[in-house]
């Protein structure tokens, strides 16, 4: 069987596994977004103890490998959770591990964006009588979220690629299924090349979509045009 015939024959299984990859990615990016935005706000506007705590969280998750964090969630925590009567599935472990990691990075992106908004904006918002919280909600965040799109796009691309780490917790995502097929067919190199190609295509499509999103969300004068990769 030639390469293309072989690639065609394993494609259905791989595409099926790709769905799992996309589930992990979307789950972790959403979790990371929700946690990340609170981390960022806590880090910028919170009282000192909150700033320290959120800072410590971010430092820890950015300073250690994602794989180690994933192993903690999958192997380290379940004994404790079991004593509380909580079971954790491989999918949940992957989403929580990747999501908590992503939160630390997303928090840093948000913080950078929030801090790059001129202090005059906050002052102007307070001067028209908005409370601090409402000023953040109606003036700072809408600007910050637009500014953050380019780095957030990078984060999403990163999440797609690093969803492959779910391989280590035996989740049937793209890389893990690739390994299974490689073992069955003994055409390891070809299998992994097809796997790599699928990741590449997803990454290219998502980059393109995000670029279009960025164009649509653009407001004249806010932020500088960024080269997209």
């Amino acid at each position, binding site marked *: 069987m030639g390469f293309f015939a072989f690639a065609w024959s394993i494609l259905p299984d791989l595409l099926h596994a790709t769905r799992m990859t996309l589930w992990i990615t979307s789950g972790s990016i959403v979790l990371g977004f929700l946690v990340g935005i609170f981390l960022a706000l806590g880090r910028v506007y919170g009282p000192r103890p909150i700033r320290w705590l959120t800072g410590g969280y971010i*430092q*820890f998750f*950015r*300073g*250690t*490998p*994602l*794989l*180690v*964090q994933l*192993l*903690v969630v999958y*192997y*380290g*925590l379940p*004994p*404790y959770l079991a004593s509380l009567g909580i079971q954790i599935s491989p999918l949940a472990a992957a989403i929580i591990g990747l999501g908590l990691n992503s939160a630390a*990075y997303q928090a*840093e*992106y948000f913080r*950078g964006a929030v801090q790059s908004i001129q202090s005059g904006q906050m002052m102007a918002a307070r001067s028209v009588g908005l409370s601090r919280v409402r000023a953040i909600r109606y003036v700072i965040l809408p600007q910050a979220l637009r500014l953050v799109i380019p*780095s957030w796009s*990078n*984060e999403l691309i*990163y999440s797609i*690629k*690093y969803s*492959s*780490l779910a*391989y*280590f917790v035996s989740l049937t995502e793209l*890389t893990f299924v*690739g*390994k299974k097929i*490689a073992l069955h067919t*003994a*055409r*390891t*190199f*070809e*299998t*992994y*090349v097809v*796997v*790599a190609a699928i*990741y*590449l295509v997803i*990454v*290219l499509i998502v980059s393109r979509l995000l670029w279009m999103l960025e164009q649509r969300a653009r407001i004249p004068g806010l932020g500088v045009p960024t080269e997209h*990769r």
Partner: protein
Amino acid sequence: MSTIWQSLELLVTKGLPTTVLLTLGLLGAGLALGFPIAFLQVYGYRPFRWLCRGYEQLFRGIPALVLILIFHSGLARSFGILLPAFTSALIALGLRSSAYQSQIFRGAIQSVPQGQMMAARALGMSKLQAIRSIILPQALRLSIPPWTNEFSSVLKDTSLASAIGVLELTKQGTLIFTRIQFVKGVNYILVILILVALVYLVLTYMGNAGLALLERRLRIPGFEMKGKVER
């Protein structure tokens, strides 16, 4: 308590050296390959630029883990090229880092204002001279902060080499906890993973501190060298 000390000793003596060696090797390989690629991308002929661009896209778009599997199991089982696991990891992650590093250097070279090259040429310098004594010294300074980020992600990605059995920190950690797991009701899985994480944290801190020191020593007024958050 003694179990913890023994585990830590095992991690530091049989795991840490491989992690450090692999990290240094990857940064070196990535630099040796990434720098010329960046150079060709900015100053090279058009076909070269496309080629380098494609190279960058390719190695940045494929997950590190998949690259490692391709260069180890893939080469071994499909072509009978049986590389030591360490070598496979070095090649796979090194190619990947070179793509990221070339992007860093390209950005730095391109962020040196055009007027600098023009002023150098106006003095009578050749293009090569201008690149060497005007553009590169500025570009290299500008690339320290993003390069610090690259160091940190390369260090963390070495943990993926555990997938093909390279006995580095993470692999050593899993080996230890599969052996002892629970002793007298203590959950050693978590304890050992936290030890592993702490060793990585210390490495990250030391590397970042060293590079920050380098950045300070090379600091020149007028160079804004604020690190951007990247991964």
